[in-house]
């Protein structure tokens, strides 16, 4: 788009989509409005203040032809022929279906209107983003009757409100539901409405919520409610394959990176350096997981590009409590670790060698390793449960995660063995010294700090 065509642009936080559209409609403008949030872009073409077409970019668009096939409205061969002509553009596909007498012109208009309302309703929920209005109308094929902005906005706002009122925020437009294989009851006995049954029929694990809405011409929020109900009835499980694939890839990369760091720190021969290496590996892994969760947490999904402060506050609310609890109950050393900008800051533990040395330093490091290992488990379990639950992806990631934890545990055990050996050696040396000095009372032998050599506390610490 050439810059001389630009009439106005700005931030969605300053001027919302609703106000922009109303303003353009009232002044009868002709041109294209671009709204962008994250990787999603919406372009709405207006002629004399009326909507003539709309296009969404940055997200996979539902294939209405596949939907019509699934609903037995179209045979797959004809669908393929239309698909080749339309090349994924619904505004070309629908008129072609009308031409072929496979759809009534009224239904085409209704479907196009419906799709536009859905897209605008979705964009109305974006918190952050930019807009720009350009003078020229981008040539977008279509035979739709121009739409009145006010009536589209009214319906879109109503649907956006319906989304906001949804008790379960985890559902997005990309959510896919899959019929649960273990369901054997006759669903008619559950007293489901026709809409519920229609949605259930499309729940094959490959049709996103947005496409279901498009096919059945039911608002996305309504489909979301129906899916939530079917989920409650244990008839379906939720699958967001695109998101799951993406988050699986991201988590995999974090684990690969952490495993690599773990393997590298094995080269440290000095025990304190070995422990410090483990602390660095664990904290790096925790921070990787926190960054990941900031992008994929259910509570943060479907809200466009969020301000960093919101993500930081969410992460701290979610994990700072359990860190604090662990610090007070089991691992006091973790009191020195804190959350800074949504990341775990362990710099005080890393710099402990400036304050203490020798055995005491090793003691602190050892406690930090055990504490961070427990916290790492907590973070991963919480994160996986929230993001994918007990899905196929979740189960696969759990297998990989357990393999990584086994490697971490082996490193910890290796140090435990060394530690036990050291203690035994020390004890033997002290016993021999005492015997050599003719001190027969070996049972009363004490450590330098006065605690008995085999006191329960000493034994606990040495295991």
């Amino acid at each position: 788009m050439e810059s001389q065509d630009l009439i106005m642009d700005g931030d969605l936080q300053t001027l919302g989509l609703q106000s922009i559209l109303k303003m353009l409609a009232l002044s009868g403008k002709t041109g294209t409005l671009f709204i962008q949030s994250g990787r999603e872009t919406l372009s709405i073409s207006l002629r004399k203040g009326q909507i003539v077409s709309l296009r969404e970019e940055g997200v996979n668009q539902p294939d209405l032809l596949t939907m019509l096939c699934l609903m037995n409205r179209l045979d797959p061969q004809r669908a393929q022929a239309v698909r080749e002509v339309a090349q994924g553009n619904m505004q070309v596909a629908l008129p072609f279906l009308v031409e072929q007498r496979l759809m009534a012109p009224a239904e085409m208009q209704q479907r196009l209107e419906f799709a536009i309302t859905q897209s605008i309703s979705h964009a109305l929920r974006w918190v952050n983003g930019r807009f720009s209005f350009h003078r020229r109308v981008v040539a977008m094929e279509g035979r739709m009757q121009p739409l009145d902005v006010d009536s589209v906005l009214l319906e879109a706002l109503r649907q956006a409100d319906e989304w906001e009122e949804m008790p379960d925020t985890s559902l997005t437009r990309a959510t896919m539901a899959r019929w649960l294989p273990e369901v054997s009851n006759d669903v008619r006995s559950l007293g489901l409405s026709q809409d519920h049954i229609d949605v259930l029929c499309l729940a094959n694990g490959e049709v996103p919520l947005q496409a279901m809405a498009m096919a059945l011409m039911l608002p996305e929020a309504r489909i979301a409610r129906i899916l939530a109900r079917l989920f409650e009835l244990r008839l379906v499980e939720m699958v967001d394959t695109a998101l799951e694939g993406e988050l699986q890839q991201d988590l995999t990369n974090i684990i690969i990176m952490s495993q690599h760091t773990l393997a590298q720190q094995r080269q440290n021969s000095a025990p304190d350096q070995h422990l410090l290496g483990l602390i660095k590996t664990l904290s790096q892994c925790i921070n990787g997981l926190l960054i990941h969760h900031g992008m994929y947490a259910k509570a943060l999904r479907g809200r466009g590009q969020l301000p960093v402060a919101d993500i930081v506050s969410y992460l701290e609310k979610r994990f700072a409590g359990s860190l604090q609890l662990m610090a007070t109950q089991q691992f006091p050393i973790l009191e020195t670790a804190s959350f800074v900008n949504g990341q775990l800051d362990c710099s005080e533990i890393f710099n402990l060698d400036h304050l203490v040395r020798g055995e005491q330093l090793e003691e602190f490091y050892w406690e930090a390793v055990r504490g961070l290992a427990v916290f790492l488990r907590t973070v991963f379990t919480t994160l996986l449960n929230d993001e994918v639950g007990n899905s196929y992806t979740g189960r696969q990631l759990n297998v990989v995660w357990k393999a990584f934890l086994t490697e971490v545990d082996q490193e910890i055990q290796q140090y435990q063995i060394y530690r036990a050996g050291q203690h035994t050696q020390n004890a033997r040396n002290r016993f021999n010294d005492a015997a050599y000095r003719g001190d027969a009372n070996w049972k009363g032998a004490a450590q330098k700090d006065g605690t008995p050599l085999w006191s329960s506390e000493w034994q606990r610490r040495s295991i």
Partner: protein
Amino acid sequence: MMEPIPTVLVVDDSPTVRKIVQMTLQREHIRVITAGDGLSALTSVADEMPALILLDIQLPRMDGYTICQIVRKNLQFRAIPIIMLSGKDGLFDKMRGRLAGSTEYLTKPFDSVELVQTVKKHLAGWQQRMPAQQYEGMRTRLRRRG
């Protein structure tokens, strides 16, 4: 009729790496078998005749360079592409890998997308590389299965 799918052998002493590679490649409809040490790797090569080998360098019982050399010296297996997967990223290590006969060198920590791309690149035309007799045998087994 089902088409034969390629098998990739992953040789790494880290169970994490083995599981990750397995999970990543299975998503791409690639069959994955694994080995944790050098000797098991050679047994798997002989038993399964993989279409590609992903090979770590530091392995128990026999290192990656030696495995690579053995595979390359064997007439039956020499055409199998071998991708070295190692934490050593120095020029010397890469040269040594090439001299031992590796097809490509991937440095750890690798990106899962990069891994898939590299594997797919070297799997192209795997059926042609397979000895005709073995390929036919595989097709017959699949035909019988359905």
